[in-house]
């Protein structure tokens, strides 16, 4: 309707504020000079090469990747089991239980990291790797529970019942009928869990050890001792990886949408 001039200006300044810093990182990562400057002295891919040459960065990347995959996958399983129980047998404790399962997202991350360190590592002397997985699992589990629970509530129970009248046991019915319809929820829960685990700092910071580093922590270390575009280059690669990851997930979700459309005869 009306074009508010002031609002449009504020909006665009804000949007530039959001994009510009990341854009600057991308640009300065290609600098042939030794530090972060503008304009670029020359075009060079040396910093990208340096990333791959840094053993700590590469190793911690692998660690973070594996950690994220493992914790997200386990998180999805936990989320599935929990959601099924909560939705199929709602009782007076359901709300309380739901709050319990979502509580890790309400406690400050650094507090979670600290108490886990004190209890699992210092007190129980559990191996670091195991504690890390547990810690990340705790952090990502609420995402799975929330997303899968919401989706499950919307799935019509009579589908399962129909399957059972046709000869399936209840577990078979769940696997054949409900799971496929939960696919979009599972995929987006996995996506969110993976990203949050990969980028997690407070928990990883406390539960790290020699040889067991996560990427964000290795990056922080690197910044402390070197002020150069290596981290910029790594950031660019991470951004690219995240984009690719989201693209792939979005594709598989729309493939699922297409399939269900033809099944319903649209």
């Amino acid at each position, binding site marked *: 309707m009306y074009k508010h001039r002031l609002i449009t200006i504020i909006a665009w300044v804000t949007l530039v504020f959001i994009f510009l810093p990341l854009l600057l990182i991308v640009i300065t990562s290609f600098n042939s000079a030794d530090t972060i400057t503008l304009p670029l002295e020359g075009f060079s891919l040396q910093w990208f090469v340096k990333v791959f040459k840094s053993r700590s960065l590469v190793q911690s990347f692998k660690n973070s990747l594996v950690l994220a995959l493992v914790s997200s996958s386990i998180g999805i399983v936990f989320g599935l089991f929990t959601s099924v129980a909560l939705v199929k047998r709602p009782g007076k404790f359901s709300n309380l239980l739901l709050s319990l399962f979502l*509580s890790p997202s309400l406690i400050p991350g650094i507090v979670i990291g600290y108490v886990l360190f004190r209890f699992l590592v210092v007190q129980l002397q559990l191996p670091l790797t195991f504690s890390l997985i547990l810690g990340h699992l*705790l952090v990502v589990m609420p995402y799975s529970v929330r997303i899968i629970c919401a989706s499950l509530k919307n799935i019509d129970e009579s589908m399962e019942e129909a399957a059972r009248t046709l000869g399936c046991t209840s577990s078979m019915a769940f696997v054949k009928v409900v799971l496929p319809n939960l696919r979009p929820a599972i995929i987006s829960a996995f996506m969110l869990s993976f990203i949050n685990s990969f*980028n997690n700092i407070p928990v990883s910071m*406390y539960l790290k050890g020699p040889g067991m580093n996560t990427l964000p922590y290795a990056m922080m270390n690197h910044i402390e001792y070197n002020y150069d575009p290596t981290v910029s280059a790594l950031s660019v690669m991470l951004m690219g990886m995240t984009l690719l990851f989201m693209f792939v997930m979005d594709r598989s979700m729309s493939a699922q949408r297409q399939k269900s459309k033809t099944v319903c005869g649209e």
Partner: protein
Amino acid sequence: MTKSRYLVSLGPCILLVAVCLLIPLVFTILPSFFTPGFSLSYYTQFFTDSFSTSILFRSLRLSFITTLICIVIGLPTSYYISLLKEKKRRIILSLTLFPLLTNAVVRGFAWISILGKNGLINQFLQKIGLIDMPLKLLYTDFAIVIGSVYLFLPVMLSTLTSVMEGIGDDVVEAAYSLGAPPTATFFKVIVPLSFSGVLVAGVMVFAGTISAYTTPTLLGGNQNMMLATLLYQQSNTLSNWTTSAVIAFIMILISLGMMKIFNIIASKVDKRGEGNV
């Protein structure tokens, strides 16, 4: 679903939360209340120490300022986005959410390279001769606020935009027809009707900023510590278990306290009704 199946399904999660959250919390924090008899001395120690209280107040102050800035910038920006046509709106929204996918180190580093002594701003100002000596922009409260706003603005924008999309066109047109120019309509109609979104996002921004570690550490350093930085220093560097426990408990209180206040305000507002009528 049979009872046994039910318990088995819920078992793993309950175990996880109990072993990895509840028990560790009690184990770590309970000792802070005993010296060995029940006493609050560790807490009074914390609140009488000027160093700790200055950090606490800085954390509260900067979180409050960050939340305020996010709201003030967020409202007009979200309104602008909510008025865009479907396609453009989706593109701009996903672009504003993109920073959320990068980790806090990347975002903090971006601002270090902009605000630092050899950062882009100082380079530019020196090059055009406006200043001789580099300005101290990094390792200040200002830097922490900018970094925190940068961190949480996308959350505010996405929440407010979806709330504003729910405000009917007809209410806005009614305001125009009654004589309200666009600016008055924004303040008298759009902003009040977005209040629920402001509340929800505001709590998220405040809680997030006051609990953050990476951003205050990278941008504030040891001269401008926040609660999380202090906690890490006390626990990792100094191994002060009790002080760490005190700080952890205070942080939990603040986060949960915010949620409670939010719930109270939300239920008060709900009485007057915010949906489209």
